[in-house]
């Protein structure tokens, strides 16, 4: 019913400040198995019932955690990602917004050859509603278990898509917010590869935005390998060139990374591209209806 995470995923939270603690509790309430928290110096104590540890290594040894949810503020975020990878966790989800690009470059070099997959940074996280597993900051109640995989660079725009799907009675297998930064751990293409292999995922919603060429890259993969229907939307069709639209990675530069160019590549790959963000759910319903 899901990719990357399920009801057996054992999660620790790195950065149990106000923000981290709030979301650790919200995830637990949703059903996620949060087995502990990391704040250097707080080891041996508990926060809101979560056992605390000084290092990720120690937490893994004592709890058997295999996933980390990272809220560490920007100056220490890359360090936290590397610590998670050093402890051989299967998955690290970094929510932190504002990580310096050169820090992420070093962290992503460090990750090469390691077993850890990174999602984010600057993302809402990952959720598998059917597995009652939410590792992130998204509102759990708008989701519903089902067979549509959602991958997106945005937070609230993903909620918008999910909200539309749920309202139409279409459930989701897993929703992955991959993050709005220029350097991220899991790209559109990688997420789509996972959905393509997942038997429980019958259709894929791919939400992109201006900047970079990750959507084109994913489109090329889809054209070559994906038989499942893919529904796509690109935000920033009206964005001016040379301006960073909120996300560090959302910028058209030197005429490259426009919405038009991405939509063209996606259409050429057979993706059902909608121009209006209000039509994402309806298009999925139409395509799935046709298939049956």
């Amino acid at each position, binding site marked *: 019913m899901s990719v990357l995470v399920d009801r057996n995923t054992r999660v620790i939270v790195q950065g149990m400040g106000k923000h981290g603690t709030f979301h650790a509790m919200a995830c637990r309430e949703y059903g996620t198995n949060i087995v502990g928290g990391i704040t250097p110096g707080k080891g041996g104590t508990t926060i809101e019932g979560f056992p605390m540890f000084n290092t990720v290594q120690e937490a893994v040894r004592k709890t058997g955690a295999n996933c980390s949810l990272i809220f560490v503020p920007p100056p220490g975020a890359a360090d936290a990602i590397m610590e998670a990878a050093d402890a051989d966790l299967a998955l690290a989800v970094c929510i932190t917004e504002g990580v310096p690009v050169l820090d992420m470059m070093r962290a992503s070099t460090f990750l090469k050859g390691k077993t850890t997959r990174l999602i984010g940074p600057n993302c809402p996280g990952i959720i598998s509603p059917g597995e009652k597993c939410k590792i992130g900051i998204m509102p759990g109640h708008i989701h519903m278990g089902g067979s549509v995989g959602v991958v997106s660079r945005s937070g609230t725009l993903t909620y918008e898509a999910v909200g539309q799907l749920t309202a139409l009675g279409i459930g989701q297998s897993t929703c992955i917010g991959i993050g709005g930064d220029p350097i991220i751990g899991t790209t559109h293409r990688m997420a789509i590869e996972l959905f393509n292999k997942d038997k429980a995922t019958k259709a894929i919603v791919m939400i992109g*935005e201006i900047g970079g060429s990750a959507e084109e890259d994913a489109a090329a993969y889809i054209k070559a390998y994906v038989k499942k229907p893919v529904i796509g939307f690109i935000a920033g069709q009206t964005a001016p060139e040379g301006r960073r639209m909120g996300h560090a990675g*959302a910028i058209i530069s030197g005429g490259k990374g426009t919405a038009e160019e991405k939509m063209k590549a996606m259409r050429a790959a057979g993706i059902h591209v909608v121009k*209006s963000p209000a039509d994402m759910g309806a298009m999925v319903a139409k395509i799935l209806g046709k298939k049956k």
Partner: protein
Amino acid sequence: MKIHEYQGKAVLRKFGVKVPDGEPAFTPEEAVSIGNRLGYPCVVKAQIHAGGRGKGGGVKLAKNRDEVKDLAEKMLGMTLVTHQTGPEGRVVKRVLIEQGMNLEGAREMYLAVVMDRESQRPVVMASSAGGVDIEETAAKNPKAILKQYVDPSVGFQAFQARQIAFGLGLPNAVVGQAVQFIRALYDAFEKTDSSLLEINPWMLTADGVLYALDAKINFDDNALDRHSDLRAYRDLDEEEPLEVEASKHSLNYIKLPGGNVGCMVNGAGLAMATMDIIKLAGGSPANFLDVGGGANADQIKNAFRILMADKDVRAVFINIFGGILRCDVLAEGVIAAVKDLGVKVPIVVRMKGNKEELGKQMLLNSGLAFQTADNMMVAAKKVVASVSGAPVSAKAKPASKAKGLAKGGRK
């Protein structure tokens, strides 16, 4: 963050990159005293955050003190229009007075370090064609651009600099100097957390000395916290005043020319999608505005103040998907802001998610003339109609309709 040429050159000088001698001047008198120190001829260069200054008349040669005074007088205060400023241009408030270089027999090349998104690593780029846009070179003759990707675990290496130097066909006697120059430039890129560092033109004088004749540096905004010295280079005169005001309140605001529907949204992706749907509904968005995930009543009020300060705004579209942000908190903020600021333009509110029912009821009960919609396109059409003067109900819906005032909303 963008900085001026003279600031960029000051940064490069610190890292041992050779740049012409020069200083900024804010008055003609300062220009003369710098000119006298440098000797003549010297160059007067308008300092604005945009390229194409030479073609726009912002770079001139002064042969003596009278000319430097005259040119500085003309340039300071002038509105410089280049292909990058847009038709409204930019007012020049400072000029760079720089030593005149002997261009005779000199070679102009291109050198830059940029963060490459695809490979997730910096790339050092060079080309024999200096003084022209790199995009132009890339389009016409991509092979003319030499590229060296940097391995993040070891950094930029000497052999890579040599490959560039020999690749450009520099004379053997200059190669050692070029290697030092390029490595110093990369050092500056990494230590300042730059996202772009561009030397165009990169000059080799007839007597064999390499200079950065121009310098363009952009810093990674996310890294500025660890560079207090670089933060001081920010020039607020170069930014849209409303954008500066918004950034003081941690609001992410970008003015769009020619639009008239103000947007207030949470999240960057949804904010872009909101602009897009206004356009699809036949309207024109006036701005991008992301109020963020944890917006409170104060921030909503600040956001309204900024939207209303834009005289082009004829209606406002509030589109919120409450994940962290609660719709009731939003509604409270919106109602207070509209009352306090006496907002007169039509407002269409669409909110979903966390405490959505409670938020909607608060708007209904406020006695103010909000329009609401559940669907994003319906909301967009309503706001566009209210701008174009089509008949829309401007009256508040009677509070009695909201029966039984729910106490806690749905959840």
